[in-house]
C-alpha cells in the first residue's frame, strides 16, 4: 500500500487545527446563509408583488452575482474597498459580505419563483373563505412556497459551504489554508502528506454537507 501521508494528522495538534479551519469555513457560510435566507425571503416576497420595483432590483442584482466569479467579488470587497473607500475589512468580514450578497440574490429569486408557482386559485380559495390578505399570504401561500423551495435552498447552502474554499485567497485561515500550512511544515518528514490531508478535507466537507442534503430529502419525502 502506498504511503498516503495520513500519519501527519496525528502529529501535534494537526487534526484539531484542521477542524478549526473547517469551523471557520462553516462559520462564514452559515452566517452568510442565515443572512441570505432572511434577507432573501424579504426581497423575494417584495419582488413577488405585482408591479414591484424590487423585481427590477432583484433582477439586476442577480445578473451581477451570476456573471461575476465569486473570487472577483471577494477581491473587490477585500482589496478593492480598502484603497478606494478606506474600508479595512477583515478577510472573514469581506467573505461574509460577499456570500450574503450572493445568498440574498439567489434566495430572493428562489422565494419569488416559489411564491409565483403557487396557483392563483389557491389564493382565491383562501380569499373566498374570508381570510384577510396577510392571513392568505402567511397561512396558505408561504407554507406551500417554502415546501417548493427547500431543496433548492439547501443546494444553495451546500454550494456556499464548498465555495468558502476560495476565501483562503483573501487571507482567511480556513480549512484549506490550514492544510497548506500542515503540508508545508511537514514537507521533509512526510512528503506524501498532501494526499492524506486533502483526502481528510474531502471527507470533512462531505460530512458537513451530507446532513443538509439528507434533511432536504427527508423533508421532500415528508411533504411530497
Amino acid at each position: 500500500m502506498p504511503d498516503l501521508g495520513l500519519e501527519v494528522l496525528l502529529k501535534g495538534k494537526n487534526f484539531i487545527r484542521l477542524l478549526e479551519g473547517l469551523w471557520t469555513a462553516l462559520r462564514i457560510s452559515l452566517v452568510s446563509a442565515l443572512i441570505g435566507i432572511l434577507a432573501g425571503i424579504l426581497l423575494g416576497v417584495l419582488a413577488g408583488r405585482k408591479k414591484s420595483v424590487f423585481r427590477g432590483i432583484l433582477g439586476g442584482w442577480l445578473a451581477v452575482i451570476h456573471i461575476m466569479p465569486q473570487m472577483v467579488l471577494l477581491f473587490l470587497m477585500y482589496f478593492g474597498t480598502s484603497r478606494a473607500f478606506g474600508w479595512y475589512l477583515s478577510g472573514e468580514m469581506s467573505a461574509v459580505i460577499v456570500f450574503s450578497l450572493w445568498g440574498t440574490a439567489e434566495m430572493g429569486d428562489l422565494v419569488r419563483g416559489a411564491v409565483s408557482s403557487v396557483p392563483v386559485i389557491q389564493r382565491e380559495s383562501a380569499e373566498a373563505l374570508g381570510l384577510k390578505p396577510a392571513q392568505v399570504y402567511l397561512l396558505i401561500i408561504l407554507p406551500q412556497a417554502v415546501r417548493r423551495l427547500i431543496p433548492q435552498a439547501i443546494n444553495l447552502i451546500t454550494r456556499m459551504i464548498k465555495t468558502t474554499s476560495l476565501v483562503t485567497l483573501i487571507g482567511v485561515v480556513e480549512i484549506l489554508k490550514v492544510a497548506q500550512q500542515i503540508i508545508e511544515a511537514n514537507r521533509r518528514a512526510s512528503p506524501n502528506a498532501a494526499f492524506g490531508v486533502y483526502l481528510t478535507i474531502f471527507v470533512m466537507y462531505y460530512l458537513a454537507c451530507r446532513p443538509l442534503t439528507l434533511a432536504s430529502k427527508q423533508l421532500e419525502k415528508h411533504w411530497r
Partner: protein
Amino acid sequence: MAEAVLTISHLTKRFENQTVLEDLSLEVREGETVVIVGPSGCGKSTLLRCVNALEDIQGGEIRIRGERIRHDGKNLPEMRRKVGMVFQNYELFPHLTVIENILLAPVKAQKRPREEVRAEAMELLERVGLKEKADSLPRQLSGGQKQRVAIVRALCVHPDILLFDEVTAALDPEMVREVLDVIIGLAEQGKTMLIVTHEMSFARAVADRIILLSDCRILEESSPEEFFTAPKTEQAKKFLQSFEFRRSRQA
C-alpha cells in the same frame, strides 16, 4: 315571500373589451336553490366569481342581505364570509389536513373557539361520510371525497349563501353522485344556494328555479318542471337538445 339573501342588480362584467355579463339582475331568496345552466363560456362561472368578488365588476351592484359588496376591497373579507364558495377543482389547501382545512377560516378569520368549530366540523364530516378522514391530507383522498370536504369547509364558515361552480366537472363519473347527493341534502335542509352545473338531471332535482344564461344575459327563468318540459325560448330548446342523443337506424 322570504327575504332576499342575494340581490344582483344591473351587473355588467367585461374582460378587456369583451362583455361577459350585461345588465344582469337576479335575486336569490332565503332557503331557495337557484340553478344556472347554459352553454360553455356564457359567463356562468364568472357570475359566481363576481358574487364572491374574485372578479371586479364594471357596472351594477351585488348585495348580500342588503349590504353591498364593495369590489374595491373595503369590506371584502367580512362579505366573503357571508358567501361560501365551492370550486370545480376543490382547492383544498394541500399542506393542511382535512380538519385543518375546515377549521382555518372559522378559527383564524372568525375567531371562533377551536373546540366548538371542531365539534361542528366533525359532525358535518360524519354526515358526508368522511369522519375517519379528518386527519388525512387532501392528496390521500379521492376527488369525490375532496369535494365533500370542500363543501364542509364552506359550510363551517356559516355563509348566508353557498355558491357551487361546476363542482362535479372534474370528477370521475362514479364519484359525481356522492357529491350531488350531499348538495341535495343541503337543499332539503333549506340552505340558500346558487349552483352552476352541467348535470341536467341533478339540476332538475335540486332546483327551485332554473336560469338559462346565454349571450351575457338571462334568457329564461322558470321552475324546473317548466324548463325541462316546456321551455319558452328557442335557445332553451336547443340547449336542452344538446344533452339528448339519437341514432337514426335504417329499418
